């Protein structure tokens, strides 16, 4: 196989049909950019799960009277802490629970102290809150963060327990939102991919039609299938690769000029993980691979179906 011959055929083919080539490249780029965006969301979800699963706790809030009886600070003097029968029984049960990793008792006084720390910047909120209005609680860390609802079910309604709060509930909703964004991006990417597919197929057909004399002669003089069809196939693949490169550049652009700015707050607060350039770089080979596979496959099928050998 003479490479120079094939390459010159590919270049001629792409140049002969510039508008179509541009359309094909742009559609591919958008489709792959969206695919890449979806993959980045997936990476972000993974990273966030790691961040949050460390921190997720189930909080078992104690009733008002149990909270008062087991306070660590009463009228300025040291209180007894978790000492009543109800409180210690709960603690023992939690500590012996196979699903539980660790249990920390937080008294009303400790909760109030933490509250003051969290809302130090909002004095008017601090003025409103009193130690008595905050419940004591057990901060429970589960072995498997995905199974926190078991703890919730077990301890809700036990004597001395007011409510059981599960941070995972909120996170589930949050991750649900992210998953939705991911699915939407993938869906649009898929629609764009169909458009790209049809464009690739059409471009190859037009290309094969404009070159039917050449192809006819090639067939007559005994050129192999590879020689007659590889130029068309490569035309599609070259356009696909250019599309993938543009798509990747688009992702870098979107990251630098949009995401980094819009998400600067949550990222610096540690709520959301930053999207590194490394993430984009790691996603790009997949875009390139998809581009090559899709364009080559479409090209091959088109040639099989529409272009006689």
């Amino acid at each position: 196989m003479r490479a120079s011959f094939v390459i010159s055929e590919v270049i001629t083919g792409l140049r002969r049909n510039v508008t179509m080539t541009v359309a094909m490249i742009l559609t591919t780029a958008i489709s792959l950019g969206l695919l890449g965006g979806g993959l980045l969301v997936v990476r972000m979800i993974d990273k966030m799960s790691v961040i949050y699963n460390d921190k997720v706790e189930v909080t078992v809030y104690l009733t008002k009277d149990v909270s008062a009886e087991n306070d660590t600070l009463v009228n300025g003097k040291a209180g007894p802490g978790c000492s009543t029968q109800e409180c210690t029984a709960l603690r023992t049960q939690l500590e012996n629970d196979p699903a539980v990793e660790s249990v920390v008792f937080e008294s009303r006084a400790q909760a109030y102290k933490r509250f003051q720390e969290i809302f130090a910047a909002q004095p008017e909120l601090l003025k409103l809150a009193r130690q008595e209005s905050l419940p004591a609680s057990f901060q429970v860390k589960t072995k498997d963060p995905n199974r926190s609802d078991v703890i919730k079910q077990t301890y809700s309604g036990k004597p001395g327990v007011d409510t059981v709060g599960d941070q995972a509930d909120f996170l589930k909703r949050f991750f649900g939102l992210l998953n939705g964004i991911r699915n939407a991006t993938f869906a649009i990417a898929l629609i764009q991919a169909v458009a790209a597919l049809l464009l690739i197929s059409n471009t190859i057909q037009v290309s094969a039609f404009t070159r039917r004399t050449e192809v006819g002669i090639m067939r007559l003089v005994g050129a192999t299938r590879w020689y007659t069809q590889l130029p068309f196939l490569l035309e599609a693949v070259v356009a696909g690769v250019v599309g993938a490169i543009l798509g990747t550049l688009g992702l870098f652009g979107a990251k630098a000029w949009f995401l980094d700015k819009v998400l600067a707050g949550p990222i610096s607060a540690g709520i959301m993980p930053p999207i590194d350039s490394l993430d984009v770089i790691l996603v790009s080979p997949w875009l390139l691979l998809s581009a090559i596979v899709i364009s080559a496959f479409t090209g091959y099928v088109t040639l099989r179906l529409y272009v006689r050998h």
Partner: protein
Amino acid sequence: MIRLEHVSKTYKSSARPALDNVDVEVDKGEFVFLIGPSGSGKSTFLRLLLREEIPSKGRVYVANFDVARMARRRVPRLRQSIGCVFQDFRLLANKTVAENVAFALEVIGKPRPTIKKVVPEVLELVGLDGKANRMPNELSGGEQQRVAIARAFVNRPLMLLADEPTGNLDPDTSQDIMLLLERINRTGTTVLMATHDHSIVDSMRRRVVELSLGRVIRDDARGVYGVGR
């Protein structure tokens, strides 16, 4: 070189067979005219040899190939041993004379040094030395057909199929083309030419195979066009 055994070809679109139980044998180095009116099966005959079509019945042998039964991937080998010339020349308008001839070698993967050597040789053989860098539209019809013949012959095929090669040419030019085909025939290449041209067939006195409605109705070793009518 060519052998058709009880070959029939029926197209889906037609009830009457394009070829009907045809038996023809052509030896190596022969010069054969294939004549008959339009629709008599000449084109189907040639297409079967190139495996552009597969016979509905019978066997087709070309050189050492069992054409009807060979694997698809071996078809290029068959076609590399056959040169083809057509009424409409089929030259590439955006390539020069030399490039048109070289194209036939490039696409079957011949090395560049070989191409550089044999293209001028074949252009000289067909009488086009000095016109290597012309574009096809700068040439006369006869010259264009010479380019097409050069392209068909450059890979030294075992046989040359010519489908109405003089159909677009005036009588004098046609005569020149026939001389060229004769010269190629003298190198040992089998030539099979489908034609309507009475005067050429009559003046050459070569073997004539006449088809009518898909059947061979005449096969004369030294025939003329109009015998028996």
